[in-house]
């Protein structure tokens, strides 16, 4: 790879580390400010002062907040993500059992939504002003305005309860065949696609329209190139930057923002784990989940930037 990209990657990596550190401090501070702590939350109504004190000592919560943060950070450098205060299980194991599920759901959604969004966006840009463009844009805005729990609930009512075609819950562990996997994932993926397709579509439409108005495109047309070649070989490579960024932003939502879909379909993913962790005041778990979402976001944004540079020869050679 060439020097421009390497330098960019190096810079980004350092910035990423700084961002992760900052995020960890902020998350820790905010969770520490919340009323109650893990021992109180776990004992709930049956908390008496002795049992709370005993549980606190057991969980290691009887020291000051900065000390706890310091302990967690040193553990992290050694590669130990810590132990969840509520279940006494290693955080790595807890997340490890759920992260593949989240990644799989995100990957399948991305695989389906990105091609659809790009095709619709580019087609709308090429035929802008036509009835296709108007219908596509309006329905995209309409669909994204509908809250995803409504889409999910209606889908479940129709496809699971009335027609009994698809299962109402997605058990990530019982999947044995591709057919079963498709059935279990159909509705969650549908609900998530409805949310992210619109944004990607509109962004790609705007980026391509912006390029199609440039003078060099007029030159390409005068040269006699076919419309397909004009769009795909000339306009699109210049539009990759903003499109990749929009795609990265939308996809980063898929890792941590899918709590509603996970709740409705009882899908064991990382988002629900984090929400449970917050309500249980389980500090190590919340920290690790926040780190993962942050990493995911940084990775996607960096990839988008690199793609933007690679697609543009002017930037590629410095």
């Amino acid at each position, binding site marked *: 790879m060439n020097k421009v990209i390497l330098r960019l990657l190096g810079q980004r990596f350092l910035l990423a580390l700084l961002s992760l550190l900052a995020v960890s401090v902020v998350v820790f501070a905010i969770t520490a400010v919340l009323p109650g702590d893990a021992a109180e*939350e776990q004992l709930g*109504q049956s908390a*008496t002062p002795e049992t709370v004190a*005993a549980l606190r000592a057991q969980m290691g919560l009887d020291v000051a907040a900065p000390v706890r943060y310091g302990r967690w950070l040193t553990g992290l450098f050694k590669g130990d993500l810590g132990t969840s205060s509520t279940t006494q299980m290693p955080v790595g194991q807890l997340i490890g*059992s759920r992260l593949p599920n989240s990644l799989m759901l995100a990957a399948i959604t991305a695989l389906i939504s990105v091609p659809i969004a790009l095709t619709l966006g580019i087609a709308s840009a090429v035929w802008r002003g036509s009835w296709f463009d108007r219908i596509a844009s309006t329905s995209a805005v309409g669909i994204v305005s509908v809250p995803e729990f409504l889409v999910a*609930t209606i889908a479940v009512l129709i496809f*699971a309860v009335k027609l009994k075609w698809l299962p109402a*819950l997605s*058990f990530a562990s019982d999947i044995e065949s591709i057919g079963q996997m498709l059935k279990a994932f159909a509705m969650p993926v549908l609900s998530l696609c409805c949310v992210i397709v619109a944004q990607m579509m509109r962004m790609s439409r705007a980026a391509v329209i912006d390029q199609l108005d440039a003078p060099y495109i007029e030159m390409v047309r005068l040269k006699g190139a076919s419309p397909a070649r004009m769009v795909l070989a000339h306009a699109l490579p210049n539009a990759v930057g903003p499109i990749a960024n929009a795609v990265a932003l939308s996809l980063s939502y898929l890792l941590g923002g899918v709590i509603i879909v996970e709740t409705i379909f*009882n899908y064991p993913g990382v988002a629900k784990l984090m929400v449970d962790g917050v309500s249980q005041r389980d500090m190590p778990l919340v920290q690790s989940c926040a780190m993962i979402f942050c990493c995911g976001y940084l990775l996607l944004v960096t990839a988008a930037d690199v793609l933007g540079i690679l697609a543009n020869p002017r930037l590629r050679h410095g």
Partner: protein
Amino acid sequence: MSDSNHKSLRHLVGPQDSMRMMESLKRGATRRDILSMLMAGGMQATLAGGLAGMAMSAHADMPRRGGRIRVGTDTAAVTDTLDPSKQSNKTDYCRGSMIYNGLTSLDSSLNPQPALAESFTTKDAKTWVFTLRKGVTFHDGKPLVPADVVFSVMRHKDPATSSKAKTLADQIDSVTATGPNQVTVVLSAPNADLPVILGTFHFYILKDGTTDFNAGIGTGPYKVKEFKPGIRSVMVRNESYWKPNKPYLDEIELVGVGDESARINALLSGGLDLIASVNPRSVDRVKSAPGYSLFITQSGQYSDLVMRKDMGPGANPDFVMAMKYLFDREQMKKAIALDYAVLANDQPIDPTNRFYFAGLPQRAFDPEKAKFHLQKSGITGKIPVVASPASLYSTDIALVLQQSAQRVGLDLDVKRMPADGYWSNHWLNSAVGFGTVLPRPSADVLLTQFFHSTAAWNESRWKSPVFDQLLLSSRAETDFAKRKQMYADMQTMISQEAGIGIPMFMATLDAHSSKLKGLVPVPLGGLMGYSFAENVWLEA
């Protein structure tokens, strides 16, 4: 039901023929086969038809072995545990009753029945002798010995265990093995309800010295096949269970589905066979779908209005009386619980309890008397009332109260707190607020935990030495009639003097596929007091 059908059949055709019919049904005969069998013997068609029908329903009521069900409860958290001392949510209780047994178990009237203890005797309610059942083994083959019982019960007293049942275990002085199959329990003070306490979820019997609970080794009807906290657990039948012929099902999968509509959708689409905690507002969906039934458990759970007697408006007894008269109980039962409730009388013992005092006159909705007491109390201005979704129906009850209060010129300001952290921050601290009490195994446990002068959960801070003394004597009293009278007095005292208002006792609603049989309500909680696993079977 099965017995009466069986008996009529035997009376009509004679024992041999009825046995022949039942045997062929077991082998898979259909109604037509039974009909042809009867008519071949020369019976007339209509009589044969009636007998065939009777045989079919007698067969349907007999437990059938085999099958696998999926159960959905309403909580699934990564804090799920198989350690009985730390369990507190319904899913955990269900799992516990699948893999463990206690010394006793509670039946549908909350009477203690022998389980791992074949018999239990006492002379003075202070020293109890439990004779253990012979031939019981744990899932890994180790036989049950008194040392297991000693370990399982005494560990609750150790503060390091952080057991949820520590306050109940504190009254146990010692548990010792006094014979190859005998355990003696000595209490610090007489308690006639010890067998009931030992039949509750926390006191399951574990293997002596267990430290890792994830394997779930117990003596129960099912063995752990898979346990993923927060996701699901799968249990398989324990082939060497000490109860003959039980359990009926081959395998049970237990999943926690937090969202109520997701749970009901899963049931109605065939993904689950039994679900817990159905909201009364969703009952129509279940009832209108063919092949699904509702399972109602009336128990003693209630949400109560707490008026602290040591501070705020509750310190004035006339204010407390006024509020009690402002409860429009009929309206609340109809509109909030949709009739899945029983009226309550500002005291916590419900009609399913053997000590319920029916002679206490029901306090009615009386705005006139409320107005009189309110004026006498001299309290004016806005009174904040704290409610929360964490406390079942409390926000709805508070709003109905607010409406009734407006009629007598009392301004109640309902403050709705989020469910998160309600129990730690608001419940026992608000001057006027709401609490929820889940069903308790015995009247003694409930009154001790919530109404004794020194109880940690004495919500209204009501202190009555007469009540405390009555509570202590009723615990030691072994004569049932005398005990009942004492409890009647205590219920009257609470209704008249304590700072709590209880409008109704709420029923728990579960739903299931009609193919699942054998569910009988146990007032300890939904799903047969969480012990449905060994009692249910799947129809063909």
